[in-house]
């Protein structure tokens, strides 16, 4: 399973300031810590980045890839910033994200094709959050059709069922598990899926968050989740990723399996 580190995020004051001042030090430290913790990709969330998105993203991609050897997930609603990041990225990047909105698809799918990048497809339309697993699948079909139209290989599309907090939308959480299962059946080989994990425990007490996060992650991996944007500094998350991989016979057991990738 692809564990995408979530920590470099404009919503954290430390990073919004570092982005603005082009102060790389805290970004470098966090990139290295997340990869050491077990991240095999890093999410770089710069938010809407209306002002200088392209310059900021290319600065981040170039510098982060100098200090860690993992691909990056370019997270912004600014398509120009995404393209600027893709242009300097080494290896296979991930675009985070398009929705099922036809305008967004027409804008972002060609970028994924042009730069041979993976792309996250949020099962989200202009009408608001999907109500159940079936609506998520209907939107997934639209995303897949747009991918096919623009020449993006199906295995590069990561369908995102949209994680919601268990505190408030409890009945949706099991629909998300159902959607992950159904996404797999929409193509052969099965479609990939991704979630923004920490959202499930949003507004839950701090002491409960890790437990809710890694329990949901374990359940989602069991039904076929292929990637998650997670807090790789939480050992429970990476331990769950490694242990599920061993239990599903995707990696070889030995007494020290937690200590290797």
């Amino acid at each position, binding site marked *: 399973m692809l564990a995408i580190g979530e920590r470099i995020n404009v919503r954290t004051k430390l990073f919004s300031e570092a982005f603005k001042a082009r102060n790389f030090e805290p970004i470098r430290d966090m990139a290295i810590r997340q990869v050491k913790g077990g991240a095999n990709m890093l999410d770089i969330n710069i938010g809407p980045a209306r002002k200088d998105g392209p310059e900021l993203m290319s600065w981040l991609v170039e510098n982060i890839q100098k200090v860690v050897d993992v691909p990056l997930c370019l997270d912004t609603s600014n398509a120009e910033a995404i393209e600027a990041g893709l242009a300097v990225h080494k290896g296979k990047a991930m675009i985070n994200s398009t929705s099922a909105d036809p305008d967004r698809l027409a804008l972002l799918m060609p970028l994924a094709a042009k730069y041979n990048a993976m792309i996250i497809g949020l099962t989200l339309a202009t009408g608001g959050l999907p109500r159940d697993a079936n609506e998520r699948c209907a939107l997934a079909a639209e995303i897949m059709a747009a991918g096919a139209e623009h020449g993006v290989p199906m295995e590069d599309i990561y369908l995102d069922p949209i994680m919601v907090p268990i505190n408030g939308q409890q009945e949706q959480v099991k629909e998300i598990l159902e959607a992950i299962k159904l996404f797999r059946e929409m193509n052969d080989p099965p479609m990939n899926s991704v979630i923004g994990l920490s959202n499930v425990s949003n507004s839950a007490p701090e002491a409960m968050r890790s437990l809710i996060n890694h329990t949901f992650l374990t359940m989602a991996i069991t039904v076929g989740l292929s990637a998650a944007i997670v807090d790789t500094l939480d050992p429970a998350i990476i331990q769950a990723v490694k242990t599920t991989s061993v239990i599903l016979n*995707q*990696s*070889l057991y*030995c*007494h*020290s399996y937690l200590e*290797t990738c």
Partner: protein
Amino acid sequence: MAFTVPKEVYNGKINQVEVGRDQHKLILGGEEVLPFLSFEGKAVSTVPLALEVHDVNPGDWAPSLTAVYGSAMNDPVQWARMCQDEFKADMICLRLSGTHPDNGDRSAEEAGKVVQAVLAAVKVPLIILGSNHAEKDAAVIKHVAEVAANTGSIIGKAQEKNYKTFAAVATAYGHKLVALSDLDINLSKQLNILLTQSGFDGKNIIIDAMSSTLGYGLEYTYSVMERIRLSALQQNDAMMQMPMICDVGEVTWKIKEAKASEEDQPAWGPAKPRGVLWETLTALSFLMAGGNLVVFRHPEALGMVRKTVAELATAA
């Protein structure tokens, strides 16, 4: 409709390990597909084949073997030269069996002198092994590894009981390391993790899954080796991507089917071809399971395997 050959896609590849010194270096491993499937990608085209030499005359070898080496078995230098010059072994596997507490209990210094003399006498790379007595091997290898410093030799065998000493001296003197586990894939991975955690570079490890001969557990070794290769190539498990050594001669030539004379077992036919074929078939089986280096006792078995490997490597 035209037929398309179905091809597997692999996620990992096997480490490439260089052994030996000067102009006589050899490469082990480096393949990116299952054994000999060169239509799928980069397969091994050569497998180094070694012959065994002992520091003291083993005394109990089968007549088929003593007939080959004769009095050279009393002198490791002469024996090693014979293996290199006459039988064209790619490597010499020098076993310090005289250091075993039950077989003379020779000192590390005595063993070191033999290693030094053999290194001076032959150019091909050396595999220097103890007597498979975990404690004594650890004591002997400290000195022997120093004597052989910077010759790019393979030393062994590191086991769970003594791996720290082996890792330290192999690092200090620039050797590769054989990591032996008891016919168990999980223990093999565990030992490799322990070695790398102790600071040893995993790129210098050679896995010994513990060989067993035809009729005496060959299928267990085969299965462990095969699963090690699948983990390395399909699951991209870095702790399983080391080349594998097959210690075939030792396990083959101690069984009655290889040793018994025709007088004792008339129904089994002549002793020599029987033993040689037994060793050949055991070695070939392990090469099919992903072996990267074979240690033989009989030069004719080595010759037959070399010929077969060459044919398989050029077949595609």
